[in-house]
């Protein structure tokens, strides 16, 4: 590289940085920077009426899993916390499974439509995707409420004679999350299936494979990056969900997101809330790293 070229390259890099500075500043102040505050707060001592006292303490982290016996000072497992973690993880996994069970056939259906229709079907998936999550949660709530659309219809037909008690249960949260996050499963699955070479199916059938064998041995392995991507895109927001469990789970069926809120509002244990936030952040980041790897493999045709 000549001196002039080198100077141009340096100038280009400098301009690149300069142009990005306003965005980075804004994000630093109101998105990335505050995460550092959370990290620091997780190592402080809770104040009596919320907030913190500036004294180093690991209690926030310890009390994620353990509770201190007031009289003996011994540590025991915090069952209530474990119940909430377990509910969050299991509901998120179930949400992912339900979304996949419905989303895979849907994505396949869209990808195998004639080219002209495909855009319309895809648009029908995208509209709910961009629609206010709260509105969609309201919509599903009005369906499954005790005096909601579903119960009214079932009572009217005569299938049931007392309303089904779905709302404010884990099932309600599961239905709600599967409903609101389904488009996040369908879109990456569609992208993967869209690239799938249908001639491979022909080859499979020519070799006397059954439909099931073709599905299991040809289709699923090839669209696997799309499956991983869709699963993580559903799992990650499910794990951090706040609105859906609050609206559909009532106060009782908390998930991690609501538990974090509780620490900052009623629970008055900010360091615990901060430690929980950092934990959630780490889990989500790990899941997203897997997603990035899967997505990169998906874009590489020889991978």
């Amino acid at each position, binding site marked *: 590289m000549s001196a002039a070229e080198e100077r141009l390259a340096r100038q280009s890099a400098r301009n690149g940085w300069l142009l990005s500075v306003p965005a980075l500043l804004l994000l630093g102040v109101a*998105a990335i920077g505050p995460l550092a505050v959370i990290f620091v707060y997780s190592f402080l001592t809770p104040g009596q009426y919320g907030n913190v006292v500036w004294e180093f303490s690991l209690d926030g982290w310890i009390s994620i899993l353990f509770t201190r016996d007031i009289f003996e000072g011994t540590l025991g497992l915090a069952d209530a916390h474990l119940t909430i973690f377990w509910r969050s993880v299991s509901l998120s996994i179930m949400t992912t499974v339900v979304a996949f069970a419905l989303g895979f056939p849907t994505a*396949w259906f869209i990808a195998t439509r004639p080219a002209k229709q495909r855009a319309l079907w895809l648009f029908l998936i995208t509209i709910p995707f961009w629609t206010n999550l709260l*509105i969609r949660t*309201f919509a599903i709530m009005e369906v499954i409420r005790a005096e909601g659309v579903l119960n*009214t219809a079932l009572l009217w037909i005569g299938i049931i004679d007392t309303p089904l008690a779905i709302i404010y249960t884990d099932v309600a949260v599961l239905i709600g999350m599967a409903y609101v996050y389904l488009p996040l499963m369908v879109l990456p699955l569609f992208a993967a299936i869209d690239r799938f070479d*249908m001639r491979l199916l022909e080859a499979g059938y020519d070799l006397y494979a059954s439909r099931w064998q073709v599905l299991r041995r040809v289709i699923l392995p090839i669209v696997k990056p799309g499956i991983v991507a869709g699963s993580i895109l559903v799992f990650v927001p499910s794990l951090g969900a706040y*609105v859906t469990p609050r609206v559909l789970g009532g106060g009782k069926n908390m998930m991690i997101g609501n538990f974090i809120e509780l620490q900052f509002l009623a629970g008055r244990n900010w360091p615990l809330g901060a430690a929980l936030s950092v934990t959630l*952040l780490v889990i989500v980041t790990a899941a*997203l790293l897997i997603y990035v790897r899967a997505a990169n493999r998906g874009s590489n045709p020889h991978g």
Partner: protein
Amino acid sequence: MAERRFEISRIPGFATIAVATFVMLYLPIAALVTFSFNAGNSVAVWEGFSLHWYADAWNNQAVKDATARSLIIAVCAAVISTTVATLAAMGTTRRARFRGDTFIYVAINQPLMVPEIVTAVALMILFGMVKEATGYQGLGYLILAHSAFCIPFAYLPIRARLEGMDLSLETAAGDLYATPWQTFRHVTLPLLGPGILAGAMLAFVISLDDVIITEFVKSGGQDTLPTYMLGQLRRTMTPEVNAISTALLALTVVLLTIFFLLTRKRD
């Protein structure tokens, strides 16, 4: 007897599940919209057509205030985030890779990756300190927070548009002695226009829809439309909430349709 053609890409049951999924996806929304026109108080039993819930919402001072607040925040956040996102997109596309460009890209997309509840409590703590120190309680905090998390939504369509533009027109302008500013103003900006507009619309919709960060950052009496609706949950639900939802839904669909028309690939 006509033999049924063996359709290679057909998997038995898939079409049924897919159609059922579409029905399930739209049925709740359809019910929500339908009952916003209900004459009675119920959100499940039809008692005749009426627009009075829309009138009620329209005449409700709290709804009016929340709507105004939502719009002010969304307009400000869309303008600010789109401006900085346009600059950043210019800085990170169509030039040789440079040290730190991946860092910039990850930082810009960071709001998409962090669970919103985490950012929300972090901002609550940070802005709480600032509120105490300065005494300022205004909408500025919400505008700042919204501007930040809207950046990736504005950035991505602008970047996509820029990547599809080749540099030859700008090089030609330079050859004709245009200054860098003239080139930007008269060549780049008009070409980039649809991308910027698309980015701004997406940012506007995202800001308008936000619940969690707003709920934690807002000071007393600063409800936006979504947080007002969330607050209504504790009361008995009337179709008024349906009417507000339907109006918001209609606005979103209109904006998104425009967005799709703007970003559509021309063949």
